[in-house]
């Protein structure tokens, strides 16, 4: 992700993409598509829907990129657009705020997991099961708890960075992450009890 390049390099790439270079926009896509896709997937619970929304997000980013005043803020701006796309989609489809995940039955097993972590097969299965449990727990949360929790725990954004993405106070972000953690933690404990 952006950890692979410095902030200055990222800024330079954003500026070139703003000037209309599609190659540099593709570079931005390569850097951020995975985290954005995973963020969206955990928000909506469906990998197929996440792919569509990732596409919507990057198309919107391309259209709006010339309007981004501070290229140094690109990462937060990108997450903000992704989050807005998800909420717009949820509003459009008039679903209840807790997205149904029954239809696709968390079909993320059909998707290619990221090989970079090199999990062994046993760990991989456990990880998939665990992710199913966590995904189900996340879907029961209000979106405002869900997004900050995903950003903090799964995307490893700092709380300060999250405030820039969601536009809420640090105290509000902290409290929402705490509430989400309680729910997810409970789901994990229940899962462990079932296993043992």
């Amino acid at each position: 992700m952006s950890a692979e390049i410095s902030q200055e390099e990222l800024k330079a790439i954003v500026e070139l993409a703003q000037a209309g270079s599609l190659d540099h926009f593709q570079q931005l896509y390569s850097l951020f598509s995975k985290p954005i896709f995973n963020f969206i997937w955990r928000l909506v619970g469906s990998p197929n829907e996440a792919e569509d929304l990732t596409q919507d997000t990057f198309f919107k980013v391309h259209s709006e990129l010339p309007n981004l005043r501070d290229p140094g803020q690109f990462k937060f701006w990108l997450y903000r657009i992704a989050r807005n796309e998800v909420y717009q989609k949820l509003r459009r489809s008039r679903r209840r705020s807790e997205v149904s995940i029954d239809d696709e039955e968390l079909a993320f097993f059909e998707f290619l997991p990221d090989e970079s972590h090199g999990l062994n097969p046993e760990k991989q299965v456990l990880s998939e099961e665990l992710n199913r449990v966590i995904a189900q727990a996340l879907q029961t949360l209000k979106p405002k708890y869900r997004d900050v929790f995903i950003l903090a725990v799964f995307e490893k954004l700092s709380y300060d960075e999250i405030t820039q993405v969601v536009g809420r106070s640090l105290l509000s972000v902290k409290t929402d992450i705490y509430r989400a953690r309680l729910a997810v933690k409970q789901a994990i404990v229940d899962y462990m009890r079932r296993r043992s």
Partner: protein
Amino acid sequence: MKCHRWQVEISARLDDQLSSREAESLQAHLNGCPDCRRFYQDQLEGQDLLEQATEFRLQPGPRVWAGVRARIAAAAFRSGRSWWPPHWGAFGIPRLAYGVVTLLIVVAGMFWMLRWQPDALELRQLAELDEFSLDVAGNPFIMEARFERENPFLPVAFGDDGNPFSQNRGGK
């Protein structure tokens, strides 16, 4: 600070988001508060599994970038000249160029009209028909005379013999 607020701080600690000063304050509270200490232990349980779950990440398929590219291309095609400056017109030609070309055509047309003079043959024919001498060449009224002859709405001046096709006109 109430225990609820400390529990929020415990959550932040699990995400490694406390400053050293905040972490020290929390530790001091944990040392003196068994309820919060228990809460902290509860939260630690399962934290490893949560960490493990964060390692599981999916890869977006190639269709995502292909779709983004196609939509960018389609948008550029739809907007047509969106990348041209706003004062440019259709086909990427500046509106000023349209104006200049139009003006040139008008000026050239006027110049051509003003420069038109009957050629020698026409002058000779006119002189013969109307008994004009060749020295009328250059006379501005010659065009008017010619116009009168060609105007179908003017009464025909019959010749002396009454034949409208006769070239032998009377009165001239």
